[in-house]
């Protein structure tokens, strides 16, 4: 892709928006030349033609150099395409409730939307009806292994049911696990694709499933197995994780990417490997977790999910009306992105971030990373400072982090380059264009209540700012993008800020939101009374979000 071309399009095809970016080779480096985000209903070729036309209008000579002078030919340029969409649906049919729950958890962790039934709780008609239902993409059926006696009695019925399902749905993919898989080895009727779920999980979470002797695949845990079966070509989730690795390696920083999309929320963390080890130096490893419930508008949209959004809204709205507005946001995610729609998105983003953090807390380091990058459709239209504040409100860890936005949605498309070295070279070239700096957030923990927690002196190229640290407050120091400042903290009492102490000097980068000194509680405590809560949230947002009138 990058070896023999003057330019290419990076396409992020999301559930809500399509983003097309032209990457061109200028003075021997790959640069982001221009990008355009439009509702996903617009054909991709239309978007690329408009990007090319705008570049041709702005700089005809550059457009000729990059081979996009004729917008009608733009569709012929090479493309890197990342796609995201709603998760596929899996029907879990189990011999017992315990097994249904275990299998459902495994499928959920692998990014599937799960519906399930068991012979312990439901009758055979319910199980058959579920497997034959129209929204089902795959069926996962199983027993424990070894199966307890109650399951052994039901295993034959479950086996017969699966045979019937395959008979009726020859196009179905069926995964068998546990004793059911072992019993079925040796053949299955019909034309359906039958997979055998694996075992050998080192973490012990799916130790009960044993892999059948199918093909040459290596044994792997059920979650990874189901994840692999779920993956689609150009899958944005996998691609974002790859680019995060490249970004961490190129910047030499611990990077965390937070992606709240319409179909799921995802958290990816990558750290550069040991520089002292020449065999791994310059590389990074990523941990990536997707949580379906952390979608901007989760499905099902139950009362709990509606109340979670309501807790972050600054304008009063009853539950029925809020549910309708969230439903409309899910149906037309590109609609009403301004005014009240922006406030609704910001509240839904906070609720989704809170769910994502809660669901992944035990799988990610409690120390803050060097850089937090926001990406995904939910961040596409909100002003940068509003995104910075949403992250500061919900992802609360004592320490300091830089904040940035993947404004052109490039993390996905770049991650579709499978060759690590090629991708890393491209990310190295694009590092300055890839991310818009939102600023830095410093969050000390353990501050005692009182009139003053101490003093802060910020030394930047533009001058020195001194301010009193007010416990429970959110203080903003103007620090534009591209500027670096040293923030010297002198606390009255010891606090936790990476380490335990009273005096700290932190180097902080500027951004659209500036330097945010967050002296609020960790975790954040908000007033129980809705009116007080709304006033406080509105005051914080007004301080950072220009144009916010909630």
């Amino acid at each position, binding site marked *: 892709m990058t070896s023999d071309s003057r330019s290419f399009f990076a396409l992020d095809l999301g559930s809500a928006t399509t983003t097309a970016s032209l990457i061109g080779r200028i003075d021997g480096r790959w640069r982001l030349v221009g990008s355009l985000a439009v509702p996903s209903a*617009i054909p991709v070729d239309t978007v690329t033609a408009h990007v090319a036309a705008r570049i041709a209008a702005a700089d005809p000579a550059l457009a000729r150099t990059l081979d996009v002078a004729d917008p009608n030919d733009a569709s012929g340029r090479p493309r890197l395409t990342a796609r995201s969409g709603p998760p596929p649906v899996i029907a879990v049919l189990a011999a017992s409730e315990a097994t249904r729950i275990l299998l459902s958890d495994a499928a959920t962790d692998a990014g599937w939307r799960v519906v399930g039934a068991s012979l312990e709780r439901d009758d055979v008609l319910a199980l058959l009806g579920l497997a034959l239902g129209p929204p089902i993409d795959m069926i996962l059926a199983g027993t424990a292994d070894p199966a307890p006696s109650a399951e052994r009695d039901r295993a034959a019925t479950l086996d017969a049911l699966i045979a019937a399902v395959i008979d009726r749905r020859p196009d179905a993919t069926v995964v068998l696990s546990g004793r059911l898989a072992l019993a079925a080895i040796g053949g299955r009727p019909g034309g359906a694709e039958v997979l055998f779920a694996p075992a050998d999980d080192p973490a012990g979470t799916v130790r009960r499933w044993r892999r059948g002797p199918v093909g040459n695949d290596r044994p792997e845990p059920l979650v990874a197995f189901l994840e692999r079966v779920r993956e689609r070509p150009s899958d944005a989730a996998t691609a974002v994780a790859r680019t995060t690795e490249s970004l961490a390696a190129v910047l030499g920083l611990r990077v965390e990417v937070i992606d709240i999309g319409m179909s799921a929320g995802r958290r990816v963390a990558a750290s550069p490997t040991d520089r002292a080890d020449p065999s791994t130096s310059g590389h990074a490893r990523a941990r990536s977790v997707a949580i379906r419930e952390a979608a901007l508008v989760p499905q099902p949209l139950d009362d709990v999910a509606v109340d979670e959004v309501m807790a972050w809204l600054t304008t009063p709205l009853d539950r029925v009306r809020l549910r309708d507005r969230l439903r409309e946001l899910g149906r037309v995610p590109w609609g009403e992105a301004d005014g009240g729609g*922006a406030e609704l998105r910001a509240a839904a983003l906070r609720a989704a971030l809170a769910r994502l953090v809660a669901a992944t807390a035990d799988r990610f380091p409690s120390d803050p990373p060097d850089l937090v990058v926001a990406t995904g459709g939910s961040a596409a239209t909100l002003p940068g400072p509003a995104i910075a504040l949403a992250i500061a409100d919900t992802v609360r860890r004592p320490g300091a982090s830089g904040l940035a936005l993947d404004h052109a949605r490039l993390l996905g498309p770049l991650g579709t380059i499978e060759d690590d070295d090629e991708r890393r070279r491209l990310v190295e070239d694009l590092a300055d264009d890839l991310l818009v700096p939102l600023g830095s957030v410093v969050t000390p923990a353990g501050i005692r209540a009182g009139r003053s927690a101490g003093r802060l002196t910020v030394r930047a190229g533009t001058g020195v700012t001194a301010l009193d640290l007010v416990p429970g407050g959110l203080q903003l120091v103007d620090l534009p993008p591209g500027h670096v400042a040293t923030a010297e903290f002198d606390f009255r009492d010891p606090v936790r800020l990476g380490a335990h102490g009273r005096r700290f000097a932190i180097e902080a980068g500027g951004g659209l939101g500036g330097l945010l000194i967050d002296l609020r509680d960790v975790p954040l405590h908000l007033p129980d009374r809705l009116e007080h809560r709304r006033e406080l949230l509105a005051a914080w947002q007004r301080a950072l979000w220009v144009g916010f009138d909630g």
Partner: protein
Amino acid sequence: MTDGLDLVATRPLVVHDPVVRLPFEIGDRALVDIGVAVEQGAALAVRMREVTAGPAGQRRRGRAVRSGSIEDGSARSGSWSGAQDGAAGERLFELGGGWWVSRGTPDEELTAPVAGVVRSIRPGSGLEFVASGVAVAGTAATGGPVRGRLEAIDARDGDLRAGAIDVARAGAILVVGGRVDAEAITRARAMGVRGLVVGGMSEKVLHDLAASERRQLASVHRPPPFAVVVLHGPLRRPLDGPVRTILEAAAGREVAIVADPPMLLLGEHGGSLPQIDPLAVWVTQGPLAGRSGRWAGLAGSRRFRAGVQLEAGFVLFPDGSRAAVPLGDLERHA
């Protein structure tokens, strides 16, 4: 003038010969074959109620073991067992050398909502049907399929008042404009109205209606089926101008509501399709929602309420005013 109009999302005004899915429960029995052309109202299937599952009787594979059974080696799950000893039903699965079958009481007939052709039949899952003619697509529907003559109570805008529905509307599918509340729905059902076509309906009302419809269907003395199709979403929004024109042209004709996908089927004589100005756009979201106008070119990236920067286009409204509207808030009909 048309510059940038292709960045406005397109929604088909009508769908031609749509494929609709009529759901089957386990035990429902198809009365037609794949590929058969049927007229409106023709019986497609018999619905069963109080369906249970049980063994059809012990037998060996491929051999009849009981008088009256027509089991043979070709029997498969989903086929119909024709045993004459009371064990008739849909074959479910084979266990211990015999078939388990569904048993139920024949209930109502599922009839063709409009004329069309049966495309596929999946026992226990559903029947796909190519509906002849045109249909107006909705965003949500509940109940159905139902048929009735199309009548407009208020095809302009505003909410439907319960008092506007009387017994003269029995058997009709009513076009009720912008939004409808629970009280008006209750009265419509009581008056024998078969269905409602509405611009917007709160999800709670739709959810409550679906639950009520399920309870009614489970009762011994059930009322005639009732359905609602929502054309524009959960928020209050008047019907688009061209949609209104199509519905007004189809008034008095026999139409149908189906839920999967949510649609108002107008059939082969669906009325005349209006000529659409190629520059016409509708504002679907935001403070100008519901208004229509003419596209007047791209406005570029602009700052809107709450400081949000969005790609926008200029729209000329009938009153002569001109406004920059975010592209995401606009829609045009194909």
